[in-house]
Structure formats: structure tokens, C-alpha cells
């Protein structure tokens, strides 16, 4: 991928939380709250992940697809851009952008297999049409940096080589895609936050290493807090609540 995050469009496109946590007017009219909005995005991140497992693409493609989806909803309403179409289309586009192309008909096949619900049923032509709209919504910026690369480098640098630490921090990074962190923070700081949480959880003292890094530990701690808050609230999320959010979306304004 691109060599330098700091010169990338990804860096230039980082947003403030207030810019990300915006419910588009059309969705607001239907009574959708910020909470509903976040729930649906999380649910769609899971959807992308499930689809990706079936069509067998790398984690990186999933991460890029989720990022696209989240970027789209900083600009577009869910009323106009149905999440159940946007999600698979983002995977379709991300697979192209990450050089592991997936055929549209294969996606359609697995969508049908995974969801019997009519609302998920979309055909190839719907995906192709939505692909164009997503490209526009993304303003054709397709390069995304992820915390994974920094994670491996940082773990190595910290001299961490026990598998449980590596696996835990890797899993934490995966989970950050259930939130909007990737739109807000530089990837290496997200990676650091995940290492930080993992080290606390596994009771590994790497404070000395953290202190030698020339990063603002306050930012890292804030990201860590956000992640922990998310885990806290995640326990309270039920299918029921997700269904309610989707049913609001289905309302005619």
C-alpha cells in the first residue's frame, strides 16, 4: 500500500468525532437517534465480516470495506443508501481496491444463503449501480491505512512475542471496526491503544516502552477508553434493539 500515511488522502480525510456522529436529516426525520445510527453501522460491519468469510477474502479487505461504509454514512443518509445494499457493495469495491477481486454473482449467492429476509435481497445490477454511488460518495478516495501493519511493527519493537498478547491485540484491532475509530484517529494510535489494553489485561508491564515512544499517551489512553466503553455497552446490545433501529429506517417520513 501507500508508503506514507502522513501524505495520504486517508490522513487528510481524518474527521472530528462531531463530524462522524451526525445523523443525516432524512434519517432524523424518521426518528433515528445517534444510537440507532451507530447500531446499524455496527451491525453492517458484522454483515460485511460474515460475507467476507464466505467469499474468502483477507481481513484487510474487510477492514477497507467497513471503512468505506462508515465514510459513506458521514455524507449520505441510510434512507437513500440502504445499508443492506451498501454493506455488500463496499465489500465488492474494497475487494477490487485491495487486489482480491470477488465476483458480484458470488456475493449475491452468499447474500441469499445468509439471509432469507427479503430486505437483504439485492441483485447484481443493484450492486453495480450502488458501486458507482459509493465511489462518488467516497470522492474516489480508495486508499485506506489500517492499524494492522503498525500493530505487527509495534509489537515487534516492544519485544512482545507471546502469542496470547499478539492474538489479543489483533482481536482488539478487529473489534475497533465495530466503531468509527478508523475515521477519526491515525491507524498507529489505534494499534497502540489496542496494545495498551492488551498489556493491561494480560498484566504485562510495558510502560517503559510506551514512555520511550514519542506519542501523546493521552490520545492513546482516550482511544483505549473509547474501546473499553464500547465493550461495556456492547453487552447491552440485543437483536431487539437492532431490529427497532431498522424498523425506524423502514418508516415512511
Amino acid at each position, binding site marked *: 500500500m501507500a*508508503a506514507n500515511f502522513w501524505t495520504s488522502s486517508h490522513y*487528510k480525510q*481524518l474527521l472530528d468525532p462531531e463530524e462522524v456522529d451526525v445523523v443525516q436529516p432524512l434519517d432524523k426525520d424518521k426518528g433515528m437517534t445517534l444510537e440507532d445510527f451507530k447500531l446499524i453501522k455496527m451491525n453492517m460491519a458484522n454483515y460485511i465480516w460474515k460475507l467476507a468469510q464466505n467469499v474468502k477474502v483477507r481481513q484487510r479487505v474487510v477492514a477497507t470495506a467497513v471503512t468505506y461504509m462508515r465514510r459513506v454514512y458521514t455524507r*449520505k443518509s441510510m434512507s437513500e443508501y440502504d445499508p443492506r445494499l451498501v454493506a455488500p457493495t463496499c465489500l465488492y469495491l474494497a475487494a477490487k*481496491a485491495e487486489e482480491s477481486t470477488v465476483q458480484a454473482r458470488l456475493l449475491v449467492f452468499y447474500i441469499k444463503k445468509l439471509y432469507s429476509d427479503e430486505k437483504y435481497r439485492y441483485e447484481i445490477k443493484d450492486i*453495480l449501480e450502488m458501486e458507482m454511488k459509493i465511489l462518488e460518495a467516497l*470522492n474516489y478516495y*480508495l*486508499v485506506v491505512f489500517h492499524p494492522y501493519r503498525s500493530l505487527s511493527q509495534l509489537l515487534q519493537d516492544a519485544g512482545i512475542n507471546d502469542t496470547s498478547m499478539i492474538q489479543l491485540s489483533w482481536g482488539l484491532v478487529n473489534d475497533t471496526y465495530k466503531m468509527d475509530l478508523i475515521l477519526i484517529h491515525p491507524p498507529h494510535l489505534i494499534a497502540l491503544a489496542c496494545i495498551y489494553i492488551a498489556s493491561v489485561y494480560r498484566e504485562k508491564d510495558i510502560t517503559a516502552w510506551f514512555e520511550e515512544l514519542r506519542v501523546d499517551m493521552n490520545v492513546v489512553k482516550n482511544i483505549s477508553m473509547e474501546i473499553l466503553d464500547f465493550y461495556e455497552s456492547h453487552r447491552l446490545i440485543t437483536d431487539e434493539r437492532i431490529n427497532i433501529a431498522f424498523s425506524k429506517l423502514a418508516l415512511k417520513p
Partner: protein
Amino acid sequence: MALTAPGQQLNLNESPSWGSRSVDCFEKLEQIGEGTYGQVYMAREIRTGEIVALKKIRMDNEREGFPITAIREIKILKKLHHENVIKLKEIVTSPGPEKDEQGRPDGNKYKGGIYMVFEYMDHDLTGLADRPGMRFSVPQIKCYMRQLLTGLHYCHVNQVLHRDIKGSNLLIDNEGNLKLADFGLARSFSNDHNANLTNRVITLWYRPPELLLGTTKYGPAVDMWSVGCIFAELLHGKPIFPGKDEPEQLNKIFELCGAPDEVNWPGVSKIPWYNNFKPTRPMKRRLREVFRHFDRHALELLERMLTLDPSQRISAKDALDAEYFWTDPLPCDPKSLPKYESSHEFQTKKKRQQQRQHDENAKRQKLQHPQQHGRIPPIQQSGQAHPQMRSGPNQPMHNSQPPVATGPSHHYGKPRGPAGGPGRYPPSGTSGGYNHPNRGGQGGGGYGSGPYPPQGRAPPYGSSGMTGAPRGGGSSGYGVGAPNYPQGAPYGSSGAGRGSNMMGGNRNQQYGWQQ
């Protein structure tokens, strides 16, 4: 973040919402190319009057949506910002022809097509070089080469392989700036070269031996081979490896650069198709011999670019440090270069076609039109040495050169025969253009013009029916086609400027330079 603000505001000012403007903001003026995925037009932005190039991405017949080649190109161009890399200004859409019952567009505004909007460039290198009577000066060649290497170095530092470096993809504006274009085959790479990449890239004549031998792990060195081919072409006056298929391409390379073996290229025998293409007879490297008339530093640099073993081939960065760019005559300032009337390969081809038509008419009227087609090698100092002046005085010098079958020395027979000959291309696309295996029968080309059909050179007049014209016949080897050097070696030792001790004939037996 504060940094996002300017870009977004700019975009919002220009368009009502997020999303692309319509192609109707532009007025198409003229087609200037034919590309992998559609035509290229010169156009004027109506609001500002600015001239741009519109590259159409055709969307019909696309079963897999937005073409991945376009995705690659957009992704890469969005992240490259350099004065020697073409600038993608924006992407616009055109409302398709589809209408619903009420005659309104059916809402799918993408059927009509997507256009990439580029800054307009007046020429491409091939189009410019092929202008009748065109001669580049040495400082001019150095200037173009340095810009090419600077742009390519920037790509390589940003881990992008261009994978289709050739003259028609090097655009030149009237300020003398050269920019890399057509990133439709480009790819990001990682430094470890571990990923398997396709070897069906780069237009045949510029494709390096490792790809022809089937390697799938490669890096920036592939682009450097193409640069070497272009460099030699600029000095030599015509393409140096005009193969018509892969085996012939390799053979041409081996004839000049010698056959690869474990000594000059450790590991070569493990490359997939090495055994299929291993030459049956020993072949020595003859590069220095064939191009002995080149300037010493030019030849030295060329040697290092056209090195068979990619791991020993010079990098763009090291090439920029080569003596060649730091000895007199120095590369000139781009702005000092002459301005030319717009020329793209697509257009020069068309013009040549018209010229041919004109010639034929003239012939019928029993008129002779002496003309200068094809390329002429560089002049030593700009503004000096008109081609016609290069007979006579130089003759003895050149006679002293040992006649080499493949060298440019076999042009003696026609002291003043009109230079040129067939030009590079068959007169029409119907004469069997080379189908690039990777591009669905289309090559790149500046903003995307067609590939060189290699057959273009072989039968000098293709199918134009001009066989009887008095323009010199074809021969073989590096001198295919009509004499491109009207008289003598390209650096005809007319003595001016740097003095003959630096140039041409009287150095031609000195092979002892360090590499």
C-alpha cells in the same frame, strides 16, 4: 481535523453536494487518443475556459462494474502528487442515454460513462519524436530523461510500479515538462517482492527479460528496463527491440545484450520459462559495439539500464546521479525547450495517414515530394546541423567504422535519400496490430492511445500501397526500415560544441570504461 477543511470546501463550492460534476461542464474539442477503456478528448471547461483532457471510462459491457484497471489508476493517481506525474483533477459523470417512459433519465446517471479529468498536455514523447523532421538536441534528451527518472523515482519511493513505461505514456507540455501518464497497469508493491504479480504487463517492445522469461516476483527494475529502451530509442532514432511476439522479443534482447546465464544473472535458470527460451547458440553482449557512436556517458548509463539481471540493473535514483546528467552539455531547463504544435501519437498517426494519402495523389501527378518521415537521431547542439548538411565531410570518419550488420552504419548507400521511411506504424489499425495480452487488445497511450503494432516496421509500407515510393527499403537488425540517419552517426562529428574528442567515431573502439 482542520486539514480536511480546504479540500472539502473547494469541492462543495464547485458542486452542489458530494459527488461528481457532470461532463456537461466541459466542451469536447477533439479526440486525442484511444485507450484501454475508451476515448480521450481534449476539452474546455466551460466555466473557466481551461483546457483539459477527458479520459472516458466505458461502463457498458462491464459485467463487473467499475473496471479494476480504472480503480487502480484512480487509487494510485489520488495518492501521487508530483510535477512529473500526470495530475488527475477530478472525475465527472455523464448522464446516460437511457430514459424512462416520461423521457427523463432513468436515474442511473452512470450508464453514460465516467470521465477522468486530467491536466492537458500538448504532446506525448512518441508523437513528438515522430514529427516529420523532428530532432532532439542532447540537452533536450537529457532534460526529458531526467524528468522521466525523477517522476519514476517518486513512484518507486511511493511503492508504485508503473508497468507500462513507453513513449506514448510520457506526456510533454509546451513548457517542456514531462509527466508519466496512464497508470492503468500500475500497481502498489511491497519491498520484499514476495507477492506474485502478473508477468503480462508492459508493452512488448519495452518489456524486460525477466517478465518475458515468466517471473512473477519483480520490482521497480521492470520500469527501469523500459526507461533504458526509451533512452536508447531517443539516441538511436527508433525503437531498439521491435519484436513481434514474445520469442522474437527475447531474441532481439539477447542479440544486443547477450544471452543470460548463471554468471551474468545468478538465479536466471530458475525462472519459469528460462529453459524454453535458452538460446541454442552462444550470444555475446554487443551493446557497446552496436551503440559505440553514443556519447560515452550515455552509453555507460544505457549499459546499466539494459542490464539483464534485474537485481544489478540501475535504480531510478542512481540513474539520476549518473555522470551523464552532470557533464556538459547539461540537461536544459524545460522552459528553454522549443514549443511545438500539439502532437499526440494518435494525431501524428492520423496526420501521417493524411500525408500518405497526399503523397499518393502527388505520385499520380508524377510529382516527387521529398519529405522527412520517421525519426532522426539527436543533434549535438540545438539549432545546429541540418540533416541535409550531414553528408560529405563526415564520410571518411564513418567509413573507418567496421561495418557491423546491425549497426546504424549501413546507411551509406543512400547519401541523400530522403530520410525516414515508413514511420512506426502500419497505416491503419486493420493491418494486424499487436494485441497486448493483458489489455484486451488495447495498449496504453498517453491518456490511453493504442499500443505500437510492432508489425508496423517490418513491411516498410504496411498496407498503404506505397511500396514503390522512393524512400529507401527495409533491411534487418537494428536498421529495420529505411535509413533514419541520413548520413553518418547520430552525433555526426561536425566538431562544434564539445569537440570531437568527446564524441562519435573516434572513440568507437574504446570499450575500456568502467561500468
